[in-house]
C-alpha cells in the first residue's frame, strides 16, 4: 500500500477518536499556563509550581483546608526560636529508583537559599525561604534549618519548596533539571510538549504522600495530562466537549452553563487574593480621611459580589482574608450614600470631586461598577485601563518615590494565608505594595514585631491591633476575597480544589 493509499484509507476511517495508546484512566486538566521550567528552584510562577507539585514532594505540604502537614518530613520540631529540625521519612524513592536521604533535602534547600548556588545564579525563590542562616544534616536522618532571626512563618512557606535529587542535579545541571525531572512525587514525567501539554504517569513506587491526608498510597489515575488552554472560553468549551476533566479559572459568567451541562459541575474554594482600591494618600483629595470614609460608604459590596462575581466572594473589612491567620471581625463601613455625600461636603467638596481610577483590563467591568457607585455620591470616577506591568511601575514603588494618580483598583495574593506576605508589603511604610502611600509608625511597629513573634496568640493579637488601626485610617477600600472557581467533570472523584490554587492530583480518580 502506498503512503497515499494509506492516507486515503485513514481519511476514510475519518471521524472517530484517535486513541493510540490511550489509557483507561487519563485525567486531563485544562490549564491556563504552561510551566516555565520543571526546576523547582528556578521559577516564580504559581502555575509552574502547580505542575511541578505533582512531580515533586516537599518537606511539608498543605491539605485542602490549608493546614500545613508533614510530607517528606516525618516530623518537625522547633528546637529554639531560630532552629527547626525535620526528621526525614525513611524509604522514599526518587523516580529513578534511588533512595532519598537527608543530604538531598540539604542540597535542595542550599540550592534555594545560598547565593550563587545554582551554577553561579541565585534562586529566584530565595526570598520565599526567609532569613535562613544554614541547613545541616544532623544524625543522618534529620535536617536542621537555622534562621538568622525568628521567622514564625517558615512552616507555612516550606510547602513552596520541592525536594530534588542531589545526584541528578549534579549529573544534569540546571539546564537538565529545567526540562527533565527526578522527583519523589506521585507522578513522573512522560513527555513535556512545550506550550501544549505536560504528560505525567503514575509512579508505582510512590511512598504514599502525607500520612495526614488520606488516601495514602500511589496515585489513583494512570496518567495526568496538563493541557494548556490559555483562553477561558476555549477551556470551558473543552470541558463541555469532554476533552478535559478539570478546568481552572472558570469565569463566573460561565458557571451556570457548566452546571446546566450534563456531566459537568462547578466546584469552588475560598481563594486567597484580597481585592481593594488603593486611595493615594499623597494625592489631592484622599489625604482627608472624610473623603476616604465617603468612598467606603458609597460602595455596596454585597451588590457587587452578587451581580458581578455571581455571589462567589467573601466581603472583607481589612486586608486579610477571613481564612488567614490573625483575621478577625472588624467594624464595617456600611453602604450609606447619604452619609457619603455628607462626609464629602464636610471635607469641603459639596459639589463633588473628579478622580481617575486605574485598573487592569481584566478588572475593567468591576472597576466600572465601583466607579458608578462612587459617582452616585459625588466622587465622579473615570476608569483608566492600563497594562499590569505599567500599573505596577506606577503604583507599586518601593521607597519614597512620589505617586501620581488618585485610585488604583487592584489585588494582592496571599497563598500562605499568613499576614506576613500580604499585610506587611501593602501597609508597611514605603513597602513595595503600599500603593496608598500609607505611613503609620504604630502599624509598622506591630507588623515588624509580629513578623518575629513566636507566641501564636500574641502574634494574632498584634495583627488584630494593626487591622483595627488601618480600619480606622482606611488607606484602602477593602472589598472582597473571591473564590477560585473550577469546572469539573462528573467522572472525577476524590479531588478537591485547594485554597492555594494548586491542583494536586494524587487523590483524584476517574469513574
Amino acid at each position: 500500500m502506498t503512503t497515499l493509499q494509506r492516507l486515503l484509507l485513514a481519511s476514510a476511517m475519518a471521524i472517530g477518536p484517535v486513541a493510540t495508546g490511550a489509557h483507561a484512566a487519563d485525567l486531563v486538566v485544562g490549564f491556563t499556563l504552561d510551566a516555565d521550567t520543571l526546576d523547582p528552584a528556578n521559577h516564580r510562577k504559581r502555575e509552574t509550581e502547580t505542575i511541578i507539585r505533582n512531580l515533586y514532594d516537599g518537606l511539608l505540604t498543605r491539605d485542602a483546608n490549608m493546614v500545613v502537614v508533614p510530607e517528606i518530613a516525618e516530623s518537625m520540631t522547633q528546637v529554639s526560636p531560630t532552629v527547626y529540625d525535620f526528621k526525614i521519612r525513611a524509604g522514599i524513592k526518587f523516580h529513578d529508583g534511588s533512595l532519598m536521604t537527608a543530604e538531598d533535602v540539604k542540597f535542595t534547600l542550599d540550592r534555594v537559599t545560598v547565593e550563587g548556588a545554582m551554577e553561579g545564579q541565585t534562586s529566584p525563590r530565595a526570598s520565599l525561604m526567609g532569613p535562613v542562616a544554614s541547613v545541616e544534616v544532623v544524625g543522618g536522618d534529620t535536617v536542621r534549618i537555622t534562621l538568622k532571626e525568628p521567622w514564625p512563618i517558615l512552616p507555612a512557606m516550606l510547602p513552596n519548596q520541592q525536594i530534588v535529587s542531589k545526584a541528578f542535579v549534579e549529573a544534569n545541571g540546571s539546564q537538565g533539571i529545567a526540562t527533565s525531572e527526578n522527583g519523589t512525587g506521585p507522578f513522573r514525567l512522560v513527555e513535556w510538549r512545550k506550550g501544549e501539554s505536560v504528560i505525567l504517569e503514575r509512579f508505582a513506587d510512590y511512598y504514599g504522600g502525607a500520612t495526614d491526608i488520606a488516601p495514602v498510597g500511589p496515585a489513583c489515575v494512570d496518567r495526568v495530562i496538563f493541557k494548556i488552554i490559555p483562553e477561558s472560553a476555549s477551556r470551558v468549551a473543552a470541558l463541555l466537549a469532554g476533552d478535559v476533566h478539570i478546568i481552572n479559572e472558570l469565569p463566573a459568567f460561565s458557571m451556570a452553563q457548566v452546571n446546566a451541562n450534563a456531566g459537568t459541575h462547578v466546584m469552588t474554594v475560598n481563594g486567597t487574593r484580597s481585592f481593594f482600591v488603593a486611595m493615594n494618600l499623597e494625592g489631592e483629595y484622599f489625604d482627608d480621611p472624610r473623603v476616604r470614609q465617603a468612598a467606603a460608604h458609597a460602595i455596596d459590596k454585597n451588590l457587587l459580589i452578587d451581580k458581578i462575581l455571581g455571589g462567589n466572594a467573601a466581603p472583607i473589612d481589612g486586608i486579610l482574608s477571613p481564612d488567614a491567620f490573625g483575621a478577625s471581625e472588624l467594624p464595617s463601613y456600611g453602604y450609606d450614600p447619604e452619609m457619603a455625600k455628607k462626609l464629602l461636603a464636610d471635607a469641603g467638596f459639596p459639589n463633588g470631586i473628579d478622580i481617575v481610577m486605574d485598573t487592569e483590563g481584566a478588572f475593567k467591568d468591576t472597576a466600572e461598577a465601583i466607579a458608578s457607585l462612587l459617582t452616585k455620591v459625588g466622587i465622579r470616577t473615570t476608569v483608566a485601563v492600563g497594562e499590569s506591568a505599567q500599573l505596577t511601575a506606577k503604583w507599586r514603588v518601593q521607597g519614597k518615590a512620589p505617586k501620581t494618580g488618585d485610585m488604583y483598583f487592584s489585588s494582592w495574593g496571599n497563598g500562605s494565608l499568613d499576614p506576613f506576605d500580604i499585610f506587611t508589603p501593602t501597609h508597611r511604610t514605603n513597602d513595595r505594595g503600599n500603593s496608598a502611600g500609607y505611613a503609620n509608625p504604630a502599624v509598622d511597629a506591630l507588623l515588624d514585631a509580629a513578623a518575629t513573634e513566636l507566641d501564636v496568640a500574641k502574634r494574632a493579637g498584634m495583627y488584630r491591633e494593626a487591622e483595627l488601626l488601618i480600619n480606622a485610617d482606611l488607606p484602602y477600600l477593602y472589598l472582597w476575597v473571591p473564590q477560585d472557581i473550577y469546572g469539573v467533570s462528573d467522572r472525577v472523584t476524590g479531588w478537591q480544589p485547594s485554597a492555594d490554587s494548586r491542583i494536586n492530583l494524587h487523590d483524584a480518580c476517574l469513574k
Partner: protein
Amino acid sequence: MSLGKLIERLLQLVPVLLGVSLIVFVMMALTPGDPVQIMIGDQNITPEQEAELRRGLGLDRPIVERFFVFLGNALQGDFGQSFYHRRPVADVISERLPATIELSLVALIVALVTAIPLGVLAAIRKNSIFDKLATVGSLLGVSLPGFWFGILLIMLFAVQWHILPVSGRIGYSSEIETITGFLLIDTLLRGNLPAFWDAFKHIILPAVTLGLPMTAILMRVTRTSMLEVLRQDYVTFADAKGLSRRRVLFRHALKNALIPTVSVAAIETGSLLGGNMIVETVFGWPGLGRLVVESIFLRNYPLVQAAVLLYAVIYVLLNFFADILYTVLNPRVKL
C-alpha cells in the same frame, strides 16, 4: 536574478536587523514596567534579595552597556537566557517556531485553495448573485474578529458535533517523533497515519480561522485582476479565435491574473505570522505568537528581542521571495 543581486539583497538585511535590534531594545527599555517587580509579584522581599534578583538577570547594568552586550552576544548567536524559562532564548524559540510556521503555511494553503477559485468564479459571473454573495462574504471574512470566529467554530465543531478537537496541536495519546518539527510532515515520514490524522484534525479549525481574512483579501485581488485581464485584447482575440471558454479562462487569462494574487499572498504571509497570536491563544496552539505576547506582558526582554529580530528576518525574506516570484511569473519585470 544574478548571484550578485542575491548577495546584495541579503546584505541589505544587515542594516535592517541592526535597526530593528536598536528599536526593540530601546522600546522595551522605555516601556514602563520593571521585570523584577513583575517577577516578584505579590511577595514580601527584602531590598537585598530584590537587588540579587536584578543582578542575576543582568538588569543592574546601565542600558547602553546592556545593549552592546546583547549585540555582541547576538552576533555570536547567543540571545541570552529567558528570564522565566531560565534556558537559552534560542532553545525556547526554536521549540515553538515550527508550530507557528506549520499553522501559517496550512492557513496559506487554505486561503489560496479557496480564494482563487472563488475569485475567478466571481469575476466570470460578475454582478451575479454569486458575485454579490462573494463580495459580502469577503467583507465578513476581513471584518470578523478571529477571536469570535474561532470560538464559534469550536462551539460548532467540537462542542456541538464532536467532530474536531477544541485545542492543541495533536492529541496527548499520539506519539510524536520529530524530524522537521512540522507534525503533518513528521507523522507521514514516520508512517504513523493515525497520528497524522490526529494532527490534521487539530490544525483544521485554527488554520481556517487564521486563513479567513487572507482568503477574503486574496479573493478580492483575484476577482479584480481577473476582471482586468478579461478585458485585455488578447483575451478577446483568443475568444474570437474560437477557443473554448475554459481554455481561454484557464490557459490565457488566469495565468496573468494570478500575478498580483501571488505577490499579495507572499507579503500577507508575514501578517499571518502576526495574526497567529490570537488564533494560538484561542486554540491553545503551542506557537511562538502566544509566547511572544506573554513575554511582552512579563517584560521578558531577551525573548522579545530575539523573537522580534526573527520576525524581521522572516518579513524581509518573504518580501524578497515575493519579488523573485514576481519576476518568475512576469518576465518583463527585472529585479
